[in-house]
């Protein structure tokens, strides 16, 4: 009798905690959906994050869960709310996402990217800056820049990024109403004429890998001009932005000289982009402890991670903290995991896991993994 009652109660309880929302459009989401999961359409997901953008562990989860679900959380809603209220004639506003390791900065960014995609922005998304500056695989292509004296090009990374850009903006690019404002001469034979569609420029960068970084430079200035002339709205999202300001990169020139971030052409281009001297756009950046080396990970707060230089570069910005799960978010997440078979066992253990994970989303996922 008792056990049946218990089962009944627990079933009611499990039904009581709703963890899904059918509202799949981020622009329509409101506070009532905080802590609930919504599923991103697979095609959209492929288009947006086909070349990176979601953390690796999360990608694994999507495969196991057979769907891509994002939790609607306050920081994302907050920023969407701000973007909606923005006057687009004024200089771009920069938002800085910060928070502990595993708090969900990248997923918040992904959520916002989904919003931007739905709203028809031109998306300039850098999935992970450290990928360029701090990750050194065995064959990292590096070359001295032909156009900028004393700077270093990362042609392969540049080309990969161009591909990512093309993929994310294929709808806008196909329309072909984004034109280049001036002629670019790459070499004696190769040039991109004025008035050519943007896609041509990108295509050139992808096919002629040597010029990828220069193409990015050009592309960014073109985007700025296009946005200023109101031909498109631009949404800039850079994950791990603080890596640009860490004094050293892991790269070194063939002469074993350590490369500083400023000596990389990509840095220069994206620095240009994150200045607030253009209009009709949104810039969202994240500061991540994992983007810098271990000796500079004592705090997750933006000023510490960006150094004074970085702070002054993006000043004034709106700091948005991505925190740990609240009670409601945690319970909803636990129910979601239960639904996806990721978490099993008696109910009372959620309290235990909550304590042990200290409500950190990533830690919670990790703790659930072997259970």
């Amino acid at each position, binding site marked *: 009798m008792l056990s049946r009652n218990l089962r009944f109660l627990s079933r009611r309880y499990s039904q009581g905690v709703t963890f899904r929302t059918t509202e799949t459009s981020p622009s329509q989401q409101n506070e009532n959906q905080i802590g609930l999961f919504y599923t991103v359409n697979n095609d959209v997901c492929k288009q947006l994050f086909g070349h990176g953008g979601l953390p690796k562990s999360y990608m694994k989860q999507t495969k196991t869960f057979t769907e891509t679900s994002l939790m609607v959380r306050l920081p994302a809603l907050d920023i969407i709310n701000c973007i909606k209220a923005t006057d687009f004639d004024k200089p771009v506003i920069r938002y800085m996402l910060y928070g502990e390791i595993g708090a969900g900065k990248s997923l918040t960014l992904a959520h916002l990217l989904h919003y931007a995609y739905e709203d028809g922005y031109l998306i300039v998304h850098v999935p992970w800056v450290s990928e360029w500056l701090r990750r050194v695989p065995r064959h990292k292509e590096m070359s001295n820049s032909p156009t900028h004296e004393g700077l270093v090009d990362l042609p392969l990374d540049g080309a990969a990024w161009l591909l990512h850009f093309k993929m994310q903006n294929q709808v806008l690019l196909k329309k072909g109403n984004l034109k280049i404002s001036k002629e670019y001469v790459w070499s004696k034979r190769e040039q991109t004429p004025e008035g050519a569609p943007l896609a041509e420029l990108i295509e050139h960068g992808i096919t002629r890998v040597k010029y990828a970084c220069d193409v990015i430079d050009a592309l960014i200035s073109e985007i700025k001009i296009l946005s200023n002339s109101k031909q498109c709205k631009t949404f800039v999202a850079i994950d791990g932005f603080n890596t640009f300001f860490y004094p050293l990169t892991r790269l070194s020139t063939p002469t074993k000289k350590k490369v500083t971030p400023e000596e990389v052409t990509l840095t220069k281009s994206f620095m240009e982009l994150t200045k607030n001297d253009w209009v009709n756009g949104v810039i969202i950046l994240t500061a991540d402890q994992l983007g810098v080396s271990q000796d500079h990970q004592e705090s997750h707060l933006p000023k510490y991670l960006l150094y004074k230089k970085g702070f002054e570069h993006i000043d004034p910005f709106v700091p948005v903290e991505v925190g740990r799960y609240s009670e409601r978010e945690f319970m909803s997440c636990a129910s979601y995991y239960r639904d996806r078979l*990721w978490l099993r066992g008696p109910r009372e253990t959620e309290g235990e896991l909550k304590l042990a994970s200290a409500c950190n989303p990533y830690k919670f996922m990790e703790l659930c993994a*072997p259970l």
Partner: protein
Amino acid sequence: MSNFRYKVGPIAKCVFQTQSPRSNLWCTLMQYRFYPRPTSFPDYFQNPIFRKEDQAKLIESNELTKLAALPVKPPAAYETSSVYHDPLVSKLINHVMKMGNKKLARNLVEKAFENIKRIQIERYHLATTPEEKAKVVLNPKDILHKAVENSKPLLQLLPIKRGGITYQVPGPITEKRSLFLAIKWLLEATNDKERTIHFPEQFAWELLDAANNTGKVVKRKQDIHRQCEANRAYAHYRWQ
């Protein structure tokens, strides 16, 4: 004097006979720590009973008050009353551990569990009918228990020297040793892998194989059994 000798006999007998009968449940066996040498806790200290279920059992059998009077050892640093605490898992972690790096060992074992879980969840999703779905064991710990159970040998071969020739003599195996061998074989089978494959993946596969009663470890166990069967003729050397 002769009287005395008569009386000393039983003493010796009781000295050598009073071995408490070992319980067959190796799970409970593992929760209790036997130390070969005296530890810093005197031997009248009891082993702690820190899991709620165990305590409930004691309350049912009314042994709680009897035990409450005695001092108790503190639980070890890896023991908790958590629902997920499993003595077999902590034993396994200790076997995986090298140079006292328990953090890494635990990480590896948990990664392996995670892999098992992912594989099983995938199978679950692939299964079409509800009956098939119900068949898929989703709990990695259940799989571990099953795997260990399947790879535990029942007999062992002891080298015994008779007349200058060493014979491989089959004999029964203690519960503790068979558990030890099972875990050891599982780990040996796992470490016998390509360099590019990581431990957790390989271990997950081995566990799944063993739980399925196939794979290297089960084969090894069967080999041992077969050999014991073949050397049946030498069995009498055990006591002759």
